[in-house]
């Protein structure tokens, strides 16, 4: 069955507001990555975590391996944050990361 459950599938935010995206895992994952995919299809690396929390500007991500989830928090959303966000998690090293279904984020003025 699906090992990476991502929610929500779509999210609409006004500029300046924030929200959280979540991925739940149905098996123990070794590491998780978060990507933003732009309208041209390019995947931009946001975070790579084996545990704990990382922050970069207006984005913050947490990975809790024991409780099998990861979150991506966006604050002070900007128009350029629009796109589709994916989490991808690895079971074992060199195994192919398994992707969530994505969250389509629309940021409105």
């Amino acid at each position, binding site marked *: 069955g699906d090992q990476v459950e991502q929610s929500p599938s779509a999210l609409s935010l006004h500029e300046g507001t924030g929200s959280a995206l979540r991925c739940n895992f149905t098996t123990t994952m070794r*590491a998780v*990555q978060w*990507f933003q*995919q732009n309208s*041209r*299809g*390019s*995947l*931009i*690396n946001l975070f*790579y975590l*084996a545990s704990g929390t990382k922050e970069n500007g207006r984005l913050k991500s947490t990975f809790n391996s024991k409780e099998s989830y990861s979150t991506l928090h966006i604050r002070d959303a900007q128009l350029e944050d629009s796109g*589709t966000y*994916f989490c*991808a998690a690895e079971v074992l*090293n*060199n*195994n*192919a*990361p*398994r*992707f969530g*279904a*994505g969250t389509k984020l629309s940021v409105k003025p």
Partner: protein
Amino acid sequence: NSKVIQTPRYLVKGQGQKAKMRCIPEKGHPVVFWYQQNKNNEFKFLINFQNQEVLQQIDMTEKRFSAECPSNSPCSLEIQSSEAGDSALYLCASKQGNTEVFFGKGTRLTVV
């Protein structure tokens, strides 16, 4: 931030034609992945390599898909006889070890 190079960016083939796409992983990255992303944005893992050796692959019993990563040459993914359902974005990625994966910009295949 990625240095993975995929060519061509766009590929249009007729049904039954061969479609070949290439990927140059980042220098020093021995692990290479190929994914297919369909129009619903779903990612499907196809195959991965460590150096020239296949690590994992999906059941390609259709035998229409083949891939290789020869030494000193780009990696490649080839569809022997394209079908309409193969239309998708094909993404190549590489990584060094216990590190993050970097993706190329993809090859968007349209089978007409």
